């Protein structure tokens, strides 16, 4: 009896356990639950879809796409910023964060202008031509492209742009409220396609607020927003698009958004400039951590993914259809318009001394640094500017002779710190690891950059000793005799590019004899902003436009007017460095247009000042780790065919879509 009782209880408990995982018994092969796709057949040329070469394995258990949404007409891309916290809200004109990279900036909205950092162009999108300024830069005129329409059939006109600015000026909860009120005296439509901005004072770069570089003030649909009681609280759901796609459906849990190509795609700047986007549908989806992205790509349910280096290699090994920006080692993106590195808080001793900053630079062996931090797969950048092909052409190569001639004073002598052979050492290092690296120096420079600063620990030692530092039993001591413990503030993402810079720098400086204390904090942003740090892995210089040679965007943040004492918010560059020479360059740039040929000359002068002072150490171009699965789509803009920027989270993504080609699977 007792045994029977126990047996019964065990069975009951087991049944409960099975019920918890009972879901094994639920139907798994049923048709996916979907809405019928909205709209008729698309206008224009149908994508070329070949007959399937093989029987496609059914994605059992996986989220299939909605009925009527064929996988081979759908491009699936990751959401860089992760899970969407406001999934039902598509109003991105508010002052705060709304996950614009879920397709809103890439597919739904067109700006007036947009930069392409690969081709080095500024593309006229909703504007038909570049901004027109009057002589003294107190008036800017925008000519709008004709015959452009919102997705609900209403024409996009000057009224939309005027309404956008006026609404933003009236509502502090909308982004751009500050600058629009500071700069705009009056905005009006001169005719249905011409907008005139009258400015309160001369402003040579007023248009920059409308140039899309991962964000800009984009026109809002007047006919929709004028009905909203409060434009800041208006969720704009369902949204209407100025871009070539409209919302199909979205996940209330915040993990995916499905977009469908507009029937009238040709009535958008994307359609008029580049043609019909090849995918009929685009699914933006957050797949979770890199491991999940690798698994999803292995199942061909993720075409465009951001990866960590480890995940990138796993995906390449596990899926024959995957490829990276560069088909072979070093795989990573070399066109990203951001330079990464190490930033000093120059308001704090001893980092207020340029000799100390230069000593820390020369203590780094860049080959070792890249090997440790980036597994050898990154492009070195010696200047405070990303070494993208266009910036190499505009600045790196023209300044190569200057860099070779440039000297710093060490021990009463002049020392040439530039090392044009650093890429060759990187190539040798990679060969030793078994990677195929070409012999041609130009090809090597294309792979690894065109030079960096010498690894000269002896020179670094002299520089420090001149400042009163002393090395005792192999460890550096400060001039006051206390051991030098350098605190390096970083974030908490062990695979983040910033964190990788921090760990590599710490290893280099430890080897040089400095005790480095890594401080990882999720509050890094605030701490850096308030100056509560010594050394950090933030941008060594603010990112330039990428698609334009004007460096005002970078230099302006170093102007002394934006520097604040430690403990106060610093609107300028967080390193808190400024220099009268840089002030003069910025002030000159402010009175000439961004297309003025003098901007090149001023750009080079500014870079020279930054190198001489070395307020931060530029190390490598941001090594974007993107992996494309070419099972369904091909002709991505890889290194061999860089027809546009390669990321799916940039707003120019929509201009890539007409060039993608279905594989026919």
């Amino acid at each position: 009896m007792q045994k029977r009782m126990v047996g019964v209880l065990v069975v009951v408990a087991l049944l409960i356990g099975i019920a918890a995982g009972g879901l094994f018994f639920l139907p798994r092969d049923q048709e996916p639950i979907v809405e019928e796709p909205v709209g008729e057949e698309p206008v224009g040329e149908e994508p070329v879809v070949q007959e399937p070469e093989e029987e496609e394995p059914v994605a059992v258990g996986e989220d299939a796409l909605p009925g009527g949404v064929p996988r081979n007409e759908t491009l699936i891309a990751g959401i860089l910023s992760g899970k969407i916290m406001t999934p039902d809200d598509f109003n991105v004109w508010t002052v705060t964060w709304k996950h614009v990279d879920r397709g809103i900036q890439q597919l739904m909205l067109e700006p007036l202008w947009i930069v392409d950092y690969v081709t080095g162009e500024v593309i006229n999108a909703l504007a038909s031509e570049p901004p027109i300024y009057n002589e003294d830069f107190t008036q800017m005129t925008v000519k709008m492209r004709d015959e452009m329409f919102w997705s609900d059939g209403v024409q996009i006109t000057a009224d939309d742009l005027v309404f956008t600015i006026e609404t933003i000026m009236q509502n502090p909860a909308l982004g751009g409220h500050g600058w629009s009120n500071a700069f705009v005296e009056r905005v009006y439509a001169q005719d249905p396609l011409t907008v005139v901005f009258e400015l309160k004072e001369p402003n040579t770069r007023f248009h920059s607020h409308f140039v899309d570089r991962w964000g800009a003030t984009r026109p809002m649909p007047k006919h929709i927003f004028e009905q909203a009681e409060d434009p800041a609280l208006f969720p704009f759901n369902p949204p209407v698009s100025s871009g070539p796609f409209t919302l199909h459906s979205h996940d209330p849990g915040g993990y995916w958004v499905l977009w469908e190509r507009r029937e009238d795609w040709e009535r958008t700047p994307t359609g008029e400039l580049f043609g019909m986007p090849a995918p009929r549908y685009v699914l933006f989806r957050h797949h979770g951590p890199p491991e999940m992205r690798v698994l999803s790509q292995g199942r061909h349910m993720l075409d465009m993914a951001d990866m960590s280096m480890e995940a990138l290699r796993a995906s390449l090994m596990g899926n024959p259809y995957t490829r990276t920006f560069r088909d072979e080692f070093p795989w990573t993106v070399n066109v990203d318009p951001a330079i990464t590195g190490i930033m000093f808080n120059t308001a704090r001793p001893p980092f207020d001394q340029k000799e100390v900053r230069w000593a820390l630079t020369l203590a780094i062996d860049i080959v070792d640094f890249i090997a440790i931090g980036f597994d050898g797969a990154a492009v070195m950048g010696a200047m405070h500017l990303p070494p993208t092909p266009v910036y190499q052409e505009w600045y790196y190569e023209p300044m190569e002779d200057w860099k070779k001639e440039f000297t710093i004073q060490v021990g009463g002598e002049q020392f040439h710190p530039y090392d044009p052979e650093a890429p060759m050492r990187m190539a040798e290092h990679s060969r030793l690891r078994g990677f195929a690296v070409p012999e041609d120096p130009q090809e090597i420079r294309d792979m690894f950059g065109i030079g960096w600063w010498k690894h000269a620990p002896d020179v670094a030692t002299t520089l420090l000793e001149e400042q009163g530092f002393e090395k005792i039993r192999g460890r550096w001591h400060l001039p006051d005799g206390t051991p030098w413990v350098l605190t390096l503030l970083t974030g908490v993402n062990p695979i983040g590019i910033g964190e990788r810079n921090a760990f590599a720098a710490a290893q280099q400086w430890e080897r040089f004899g400095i005790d480095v204390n890594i401080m990882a904090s999720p509050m890094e942003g605030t701490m850096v902003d308030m100056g509560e740090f010594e050394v950090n892995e933030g941008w060594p210089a603010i990112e330039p436009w990428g698609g334009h040679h004007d460096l005002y965007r970078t230099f302006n943040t170093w102007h002394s007017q934006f520097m604040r004492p430690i403990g106060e918010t610093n609107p300028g560059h967080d390193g808190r460095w400024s220099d009268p020479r840089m002030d003069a360059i910025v002030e000159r740039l402010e009175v000439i247009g961004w297309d003025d040929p003098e901007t090149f000359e001023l750009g080079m002068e500014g870079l020279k000042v930054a190198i001489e002072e070395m307020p931060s150490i530029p190390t490598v171009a941001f090594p974007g780790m993107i992996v494309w699965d070419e099972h369904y789509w091909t002709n991505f803009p890889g290194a061999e065919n860089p027809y546009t920027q390669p990321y799916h989270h940039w707003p120019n993504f929509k201009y890539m879509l007409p060039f993608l080609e279905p594989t026919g699977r």
Partner: protein
Amino acid sequence: MLFLKKYMLPRVLQFLTVVFVGITLVFIVIRMLPVDPVKQIINTFAMFGATIDPASTELLIQTLREMFGLEGTIFEQYFAFWGRLFRGDFGPSLFLFPVPVIDLIVTALPWTAGLLLLTTFISWLFGTIMGGLAGYFHKSLWAKFLDRVVMVLRPIPFYVFALVMLIIFAYLIPLFPLGGGIAVGTPITFSWRFIVDVIRHAALPALSMGILGSAVWFQTMRLIVQSVTSEDFVVYAKAGGLKKNTIAFKYVIRNAILPQITALGLSLGQIFSGALITEIVFAYPGIGSLLNAAIINGDYNVIMAITTLSIVTISTLILIVDLIYPLFDPQVRFK
């Protein structure tokens, strides 16, 4: 009447004190974090390379501070918070301004509540029953076997266990979806199809949490039972010749289950903390990622709302457990 005065009233007063002190402490502590929501917003835009020129940054900071209500003293903010709370208003999210906090919670909480309520109850029931039996009949073969299995499972970090489950049951043997809360394109309707879809997506996260959760309840209950078994009253009952089943259920398990009931009450309150790792590994919607983002971005209003709900819920559950304790424990009833 005596029950109300001597037993219920002190507990209600204790409940109110805990809620007040708890909320006040959280209000103070989160303002001591070295994070500024205004700066986090600007940093987020800057991190992605958006254009905010330095002159505009200062204007933006000023505007945001005024809108967020961060301009006054901490006392003014504190009283304003209580004023809003009594009106049932948690204010707007700061990081996602001006979205009301309650909208964010209403969007995220059902997913977490559904998943955690299910897994907590089932794993508690399964683990407690099996642990109780395994504890009392610890010499039997099945109890020893189960004990060994649990000893292997229990130390596995949840992240690793969940990932292994995912690889096995969603990738190698694709029985379940790789992630998400519902299938792409699924409309939210109160239909059988929608419910089945939600259950399919919740299955693997629930199974992972349920197995490891059961292991914890199992081990706790087993140890408590073994401890109770050596108590004098059990020895006396055995000596008195009572049936083994009677001793097991009326003497041992009934006594051993009391701390488990208390622990269950506390576990249910953790629903508001969410299941962050589950949400990350399975890309599952829920309140954990909302709270995580709020802490990182210094979104005081979201943190206050979630912790207030958590404090009130846990305190209420403890109060309820306290009030129903006399039903289970004759000692309390007697006192």
